[in-house]
């Protein structure tokens, strides 16, 4: 079945440094979604990208969908301690299922 591979598994940064997580697929994706899960919490939807080459921004977060719709990235500029958590990419397959990448766990040192 369709899979999305996410790297890195973990990332430790100093507060103020940038952070990027990547999501890759061997097949063309109909869409890509990004979620954030705070420690001890449940995943919360951040954004969805559907168009080839699409770029969206939410304050310090920049989301990109590749031209071939096989990869995506989430970039955080100048991380803050509130950015701590696990970031998941996900894709909806056939309208019924949403499958998730393994997640990237972000640690921010103040």
């Amino acid at each position, binding site marked *: 079945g369709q899979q999305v591979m996410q790297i890195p598994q973990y990332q430790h940064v100093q507060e103020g440094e940038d952070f990027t997580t990547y999501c890759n697929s061997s097949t063309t994706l109909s869409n890509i979604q990004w979620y954030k899960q705070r420690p001890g919490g*449940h995943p919360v939807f951040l954004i969805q990208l559907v168009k080839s080459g699409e770029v969206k921004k939410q304050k310090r977060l920049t989301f990109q969908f590749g031209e071939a719709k096989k990869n995506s990235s989430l970039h955080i500029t100048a991380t803050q301690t509130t950015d701590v958590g696990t970031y998941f990419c996900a894709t909806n397959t056939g*309208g*019924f299922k949403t499958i*998730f990448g393994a997640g990237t766990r972000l640690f921010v040192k103040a």
Partner: protein
Amino acid sequence: SQTIHQWPATLVQPVGSPLSLECTVEGTSNPNLYWYRQAAGRGLQLLFYSVGIGQISSEVPQNLSASRPQDRQFILSSKKLLLSDSGFYLCAWSVPGNTIYFGEGSWLTVV
């Protein structure tokens, strides 16, 4: 607005005991419903999804089962829990083809 409720929030069960986790969604009709499991520090594994009453699709062979007795009710069950069933169980809903909205989750520890 739509809301999703999941309970219990925390559960400690002995090996071999039964399990029942319940989830209800309010404010929407005919949603897709899902059960995911997350092992400690790991990703989200899709266990079951349902596109309608009585319609259950299983993603992973296991000793768990799911049922959807009503449009907005989704239940995860087991007759006999294993140690490996421990984890964080998340119920979720979506409009077909759209984003996933998760419940607060249920922490299950099998001892």
